């Protein structure tokens, strides 16, 4: 071929452009790509090796090639000859969003047909990347836009699901539990969008094998590398908050691929005097085909927050020191047998550590919670059945130190809990158009302490029943019910939330002694399906009853001399219920995509004879999300949020508080204190927010640079977080502390 072109060139009067067209992701050559020279009728089609050549008149100094193929974005490439007669130009083409959407939709429909429960809410990485963001794409902030999810404030990514408290959500990273996955006390989540493959949120019909949380399961899987990619691939990102890198590659001779993702805030390096804080997180995903049937997946995760504020005049005086770590390592082994069986071994270790110090010695606390898991499950498909059974064991030792006001020291150590579980589930179709699913789990829970009388060992049973009736190929009715247990609860003063913030210290206490595990029952009725090729909808009503909940008792006295008495007075038993409707209407395919999500929620906590809504209870929640591609390849994202205000406890009066403990004869120190009214009896004004984003790709050879601009709370609406009174005035003036104002952000993402 080269000789042929050489002869043409020798003959004179021609210029030649040749090259190969590749798929941007897999780097595979693309055959049948249509290439034309813009403004002429000259053109060609790539051969089976993706190769093309175009012969042009000698008079041309430059040419613009236009490459097009169904399912790929059109590419235009300007070629300058600079006096040369022969130019080689390789071109990469990216798959269109439309094609990607089609793949996702067909996967979702497959799941819809195969599962007896309503399809778990899911998010694609693309959704998270395009949606308007607060500084950076954030999994937890994007999740808020799904139905059934509420929260207490903008300052936290801690979410409440269907009225349950945030601690009732089980977060799994590659099947390993992860505690408090947040940065900056919850303002950002630790989930780097570039490291995540997919997310599923189970709000109803949660499989029996997850009988360790009352409210939901958030199942997050990390991303590997497409094995068809040739060479190194990755992403470099730079935003106002952090810089990050993702590097991955297949290792063909080991039948392995790996992906490593890391990001870190950088302002502490640029302006250390102003920014005494940093965080980082990193992921590792290694996937290896050991044999034809065996696959191993090794996952690693580490995140860290560090804050060190010191007295400006005397650096030796520490004001706040915070050190907050999460470490996860997991190994999953899969053995697949001729598409009918799957054997899965899992093992993992998760460690949550914190250290928080305030004013040197006024309050110092540290804690370590380790979670070791081991499990095996086997899935077998035969006739109309999909049978799954397994065994899991989870061991959690806990250790907390609390030192308050220099002289008060508490140690909560030598305490551990163990949950050994066996489960069995089956999914089958007894008659046409009807799919049943049932599951049972038997858990042996044991907790022990050398310090407190909390030893407890008992068996707990849980069951799950679901049914789906297919009205036709694309619509179905669902029903599901089950009972749920939770064996550890957080010890937080007041409620399981402080104004919606995630505290930097997290005392998770295993229940034992007189405390039986928390228990709830769920009942769900749903209707889901597609109106046509583009529109998906789901409507699910639910009722949850909490038979047993524990919250830190307001009468707990940390100065109790007897440790057993302290443990016995640690929690108050409560109850509660929640009911509501989740509605999702989603346009999945097309240039204009997005969804409308509506949540109706009524939840109540019962404490003695008193009923009150928890602070994350928002009766009406409406989210409207729209994405669209406009000319010049700009992708526009819009998010509109409207919800009922959160409940709050109002102040109804004031009194003078005189602090007696002074050594002087003069008047006592006086402060105004407030009298609180009925708990959470009032609501803040309605919450409203509009966010917008614009993303544009720029191409550099085979690589792509995305520029993302976002505006959070474009209307700069002053959504109220809480009220307080200014006592500089008489009578005191009611003031508001607002949630996040308008916040711009810029992010650069370079893909190679």
């Amino acid at each position, binding site marked *: 071929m080269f000789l042929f072109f050489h002869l043409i060139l020798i003959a004179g009067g021609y210029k030649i452009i040749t090259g190969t067209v590749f798929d941007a992701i897999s780097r595979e050559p693309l055959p049948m790509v249509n290439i034309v020279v813009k403004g002429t009728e000259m053109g060609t089609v790539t051969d089976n090796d993706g190769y093309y050549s175009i012969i042009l008149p000698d008079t041309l100094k430059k040419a613009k090639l236009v490459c097009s193929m169904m399912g790929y974005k059109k590419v235009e490439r300007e070629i300058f000859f600079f006096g040369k007669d022969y130019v080689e130009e390789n071109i990469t083409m990216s798959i269109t969003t439309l094609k990607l959407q089609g793949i996702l939709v067909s996967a979702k429909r497959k799941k819809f047909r195969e599962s007896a429960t309503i399809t778990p809410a899911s998010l694609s990485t693309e959704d998270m990347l395009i949606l308007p963001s607060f500084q950076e794409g954030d999994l937890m902030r994007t999740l808020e836009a799904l139905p059934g999810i509420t929260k207490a404030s903008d300052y936290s990514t801690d979410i409440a699901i269907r009225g349950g408290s945030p601690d009732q959500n089980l977060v799994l990273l590659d099947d390993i539990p992860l505690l408090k996955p947040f940065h900056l006390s919850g303002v950002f989540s630790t989930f780097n969008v570039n490291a995540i493959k997919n997310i599923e949120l189970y709000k109803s019909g949660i499989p029996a094998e997850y009988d360790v949380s009352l409210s939901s399961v958030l199942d997050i899987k990390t991303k590997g590398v497409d094995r068809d990619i040739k060479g190194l691939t990755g992403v470099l990102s730079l935003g106002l908050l952090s810089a990050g890198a993702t590097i991955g590659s297949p290792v063909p001779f080991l039948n392995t691929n790996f992906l490593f993702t890391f990001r870190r805030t950088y302002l502490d390096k640029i302006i250390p005097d102003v920014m005494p804080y940093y965080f980082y997180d990193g992921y590792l995903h290694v996937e290896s085909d050991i044999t034809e049937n065996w696959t191993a997946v090794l996952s690693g995760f580490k995140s860290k927050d560090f804050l060190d504020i010191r007295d400006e005049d005397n650096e030796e005086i520490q004001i706040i020191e915070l050190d907050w770590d999460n470490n996860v390592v997991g190994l999953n082994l899969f053995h697949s047998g001729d598409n009918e069986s799957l054997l899965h071994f899992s093992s993992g270790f998760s460690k949550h550590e914190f250290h928080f110090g305030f004013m040197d010695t006024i309050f110092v606390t540290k804690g370590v919670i380790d979670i070791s898991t081991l499990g095996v499950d086997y899935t077998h498909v035969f006739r109309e059945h999909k049978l799954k059974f397994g065994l899991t064991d989870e061991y959690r030792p806990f250790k907390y130190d609390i030192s308050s*006001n*220099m002289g008060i020291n508490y140690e909560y150590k030598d305490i551990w809990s163990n949950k050994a579980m066996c489960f069995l589930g089956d999914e089958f179709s007894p008659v046409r158009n009807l799919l049943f699913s049932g599951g049972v789990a038997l858990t042996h829970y044991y907790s022990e302490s050398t310090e407190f009388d909390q030893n407890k060992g008992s068996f707990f049973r849980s069951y799950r029943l679901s049914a789906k009736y297919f009205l036709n190929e694309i619509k179905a009715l669902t029903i599901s019910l089950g009972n749920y247990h939770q064996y550890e609860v957080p010890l937080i003063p007041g409620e399981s939330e402080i104004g919606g913030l995630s505290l930097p210290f997290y005392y998770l206490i295993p229940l034992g002694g007189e405390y039986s595990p928390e228990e709830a029952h769920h009942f769900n009725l749903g209707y889901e399906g597609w109106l046509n090729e583009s529109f998906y909808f789901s409507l699910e009503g639910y009722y949850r009853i909490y038979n047993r909940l524990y919250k830190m008792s307001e009468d707990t006295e940390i100065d109790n001399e007897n440790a057993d008495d302290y443990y016995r007075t640690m929690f108050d038993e409560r109850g509660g219920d929640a009911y509501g409707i989740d509605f999702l209407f989603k346009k999945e395919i097309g240039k204009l995509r997005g969804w409308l999500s509506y949540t109706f929620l009524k939840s109540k906590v019962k404490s003695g004879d008193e009923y009150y809504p928890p602070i994350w209870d928002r009766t009406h929640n409406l989210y409207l999300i729209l994405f669209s591609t406009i000319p010049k390849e700009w992708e526009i994202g819009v998010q509109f949020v409207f919800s009922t205000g959160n409940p709050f406890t109002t102040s*109804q009066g004031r*009194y*003078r508080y005189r602090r007696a*403990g002074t*050594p002087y*004869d003069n008047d006592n120190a006086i402060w105004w204190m407030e*009298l609180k009214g009925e708990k959470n009896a009032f609501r803040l004004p309605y919450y409203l927010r509009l966010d917008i984003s614009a993303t544009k790709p720029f191409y550099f050879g085979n690589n792509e640079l995305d520029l993302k601009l976002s505006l959070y709370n474009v209307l700069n609406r002053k959504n109220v977080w809480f009220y307080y009174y200014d006592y500089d005035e008489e009578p005191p003036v009611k003031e508001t502390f607002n949630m996040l104002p308008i916040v711009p952000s810029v992010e650069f993402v370079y893909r190679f």
Partner: protein
Amino acid sequence: MKHNLIFVLFLFYLLFVSCESVTETSFEHEYVIDLVLRPRMKFQKAYVDSTYRLEVTIPEGFKGISDAEIFAIDEEQDTFEFSESDTIGLYYSADSLWVKYCKQYIIQLNVEGYQVEEEVTVPDSLFIYSPSDGDTISLDDPEIVYWNNCEGSFNNMYAVRVFFEGELDSFYTSLLTQDTSLDVFSAKYLFPKADTFYTVAVMAMDENCFKSDIYFDYDQLDEDFAMGVIGAIVLDTIEIWVTE
């Protein structure tokens, strides 16, 4: 049409169940009483005050309620009366030597027809025996503060506080301990200025005072019409010249 009707009815249902009865801000006036017995003080003081609506303007100088009758009765049935001072709401017992360590007292208070009665036990005496009053201590070489074991202190707790000379609000917080010693001077944040006199106070409190003073729980009276604290504190102080 039928489907539309169901949908409209459903919307009405949602609106109906969304309606919530909003609890009115109920405010019921309560008396606020503060009476803490302190041995070795010149005066025993009592404050009788009230709770107020947030939106009500309180005239400057209005400190409390007058015409209250306050008595303390000791174990020998001797009665000591508190008299109203020039400041409305502030009552004094001019002869204060009747407050003794380890003694019990019944406090009776009558205000506008309401009566409050509380039993108070004064903790034992408390003395700081090291360092001595007037000593100089360097923060680079801090000395430990020692005191005696004081019977009657709630949960055997001691509160240790540091004040700039005479400044009432200068302490950040109470250091708490169940020991009879504390390395106070290693808490450098309590001594932000060098070459200054600081007052170090060690206190033992009864239960009511401890909960009011440490937990800011000012509802230590078992009455619907009154809140506040009636209790006892014993303390000792030393003045220390603090250097770098």
